[in-house]
């Protein structure tokens, strides 16, 4: 049966039916992981930051690694919803909502790590610009303060973009819900009716949202990269960092889109909406971002060699052959070699391969952040101050908690809000001809 307006509505609305016990069991499991992470953080707050493995010379450990990892994950949501919207790439429509949601939850998760890294989290208000008895203000020349501004802006903008895009869909649910659910969706849909005056302004603001989110998404990860690049640390202090980080962020985010979309497609019977062709397009984009990332890895080594800077050369040789060489080669293999398999049509159209490679890239991208952060500060200018770092159980607990937080929010979302944009799917159908009711 071909896709129709009614079928799109029905398929998506079916996902919002009361969940089976197995769903709640998974939610409970993930929530338990989240609580374990929260307990680790509480333990760190009560005991002190010393419970983490960070010490001289590696003061930035898994907290910052996870921060960069989650900010990276957040990027492809905006890429798919905003940049591909501007390019009128129709294949984005089935996955745009799920990707936008991923962005919002990933930014929320990322946003926790600076707080965790802070140790004395109650001192966070020092970052806020308000008149106070200390007569102190944040230093807006610092890349760390740029980061606060950029990440907060990104969280607010991506949340508003996500919610605005959902308005017509919320009205669809409202019109088919009953009882308390109807009341909730009545409030959430703000009285949307789909009249021409509403569409007239809606289409325009959506376009502006996309146009504003596009430079924002590039600026945010550039700002994150400057947290490193503006420090005079070998391995960090390079001009390539901003585009390198943006490409890496999109690479990891696209991989996470596949990791999330493939089970979602299977569980919610989205096969006709999220077609293999859509997943294939994501895979093709991953080849592209993977090649950019590979180029960046190569450039870093080339510049270190070409500069004749012995400290820079030492850091990069140590990355490839030193204490963390396993992490380095995991990074290279997972991020640059594994995506090349997508050149084969048979692999990029196989759901199993797509899922496996997406997870491989996710692992690789986590290691990329590990390698960038740890190996640079671990092998600084002063040989007598060189050192290594290993995360402690508390850090692992918090990391697992962060993954559980992300999946907990995502699981709640997919059963309570439309995980595919019904309206955008209908638009795709409308452009392709009659929708047949």
């Amino acid at each position, binding site marked *: 049966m071909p896709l129709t307006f009614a079928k799109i509505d029905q398929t998506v609305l079916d996902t919002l039916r009361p969940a089976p016990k197995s769903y709640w069991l998974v939610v409970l499991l993930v929530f338990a992981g989240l609580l374990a992470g929260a307990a680790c953080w509480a333990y760190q707050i009560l005991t002190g930051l010393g419970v983490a493995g960070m010490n001289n010379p590696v003061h930035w450990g898994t907290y910052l690694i996870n921060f960069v990892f989650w900010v990276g994950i957040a990027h492809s949501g905006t890429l798919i919803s905003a940049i591909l919207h501007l390019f009128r790439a129709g294949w984005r429509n089935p996955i745009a909502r799920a990707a936008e949601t991923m962005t919002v939850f990933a930014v929320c998760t990322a946003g926790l790590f600076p707080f965790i890294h802070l140790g004395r989290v109650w001192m966070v208000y020092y970052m806020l610009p308000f008149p106070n008895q200390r007569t102190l203000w944040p230093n807006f020349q610092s890349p760390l303060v740029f980061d606060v501004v950029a990440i907060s802006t990104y969280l607010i*903008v991506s949340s508003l973009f996500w919610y605005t895009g959902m308005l017509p869909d919320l009205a669809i649910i409202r*019109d088919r819900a009953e009882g308390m659910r109807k009341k909730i969706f009545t409030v959430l849909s703000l009285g949307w*009716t789909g009249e021409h005056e509403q569409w007239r302004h809606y289409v325009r603001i959506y376009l502006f949202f996309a146009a504003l989110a596009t430079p924002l998404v590039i600026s945010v990860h550039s700002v994150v990269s400057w947290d490193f690049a503006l420090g005079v640390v070998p391995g960090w202090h390079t001009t390539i960092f901003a585009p390198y980080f943006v490409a890496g962020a999109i690479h990891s985010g696209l991989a996470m889109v596949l990791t999330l979309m493939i089970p979602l497609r299977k569980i919610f019977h989205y096969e006709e909406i999220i077609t293999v062709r859509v997943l294939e397009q994501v895979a093709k984009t991953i080849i592209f971002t993977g090649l950019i990332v590979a180029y960046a890895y190569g450039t870093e080594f080339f510049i270190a060699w070409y500069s004749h800077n012995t400290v820079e050369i030492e850091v990069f040789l140590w990355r490839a052959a030193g204490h963390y060489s396993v992490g380095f080669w995991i990074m290279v293999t997972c991020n640059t070699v594994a995506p090349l398999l997508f050149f084969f049509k048979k692999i990029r159209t196989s759901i199993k391969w797509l899922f496996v490679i997406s997870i491989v890239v996710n692992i690789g991208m986590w290691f990329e952040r590990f390698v960038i952060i740890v190996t640079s500060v671990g092998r600084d200018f002063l040989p007598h101050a060189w050192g290594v770092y290993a995360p402690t159980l508390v850090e692992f607990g918090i990391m697992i908690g962060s993954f559980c937080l992300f999946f907990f929010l995502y699981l709640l979302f997919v059963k309570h809000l439309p995980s595919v944009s019904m309206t955008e799917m209908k638009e795709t159908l409308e452009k392709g001809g009659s929708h047949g009711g």
Partner: protein
Amino acid sequence: MADDRYLMGLFLEENGAVDAVGALGESSFRIEKVFSPVPSHRLAEALKIKKSWVGLFTLLGGVFGFFAGFLLAIFTASRWDLIVSGKPVVSLIPFLIVGFEFTILFAVFGNIMGFLFLTDLPRSDWRRHYDERLSGRYYGVLATCPADREQELAALLERQGADVRRMDRDDPPERAAARPEQAHP
């Protein structure tokens, strides 16, 4: 007018709604509203709708944001004349980043505020002259006429292939229609 009648023509296809808008435009009946499940360029053309000027709000928000971010950074830096990292107290390039982020943030605020203002959202009277089928797959054309020309308007809409429904002024949705899919299989 108090004794005006409101008739809604419901169409399964965009073509029908576009034709109805054209036919109503040539008649003396008034088009009150047109509904669609997706944005429709053809309906916008038929209604001769001008481009939204919501962008003005976005622009104003962006301009305000740029100066707000820039001035906030300058103000806070000038509270202490302390040179940090050898940069001047008022460092324009780093402050440009703050200005840029604030530009985007406030442009988005302007965008949203403009949208809410121009569409009159959120609103509580959305049920008035609304049929729940419209959010699913139907296009709707709501037209008004004097009470004595109701049949004429209904006939015009039916000629374009509409399923015509009379919308009373304060028609609550519960009474207005049965469950959408049951009423129109």
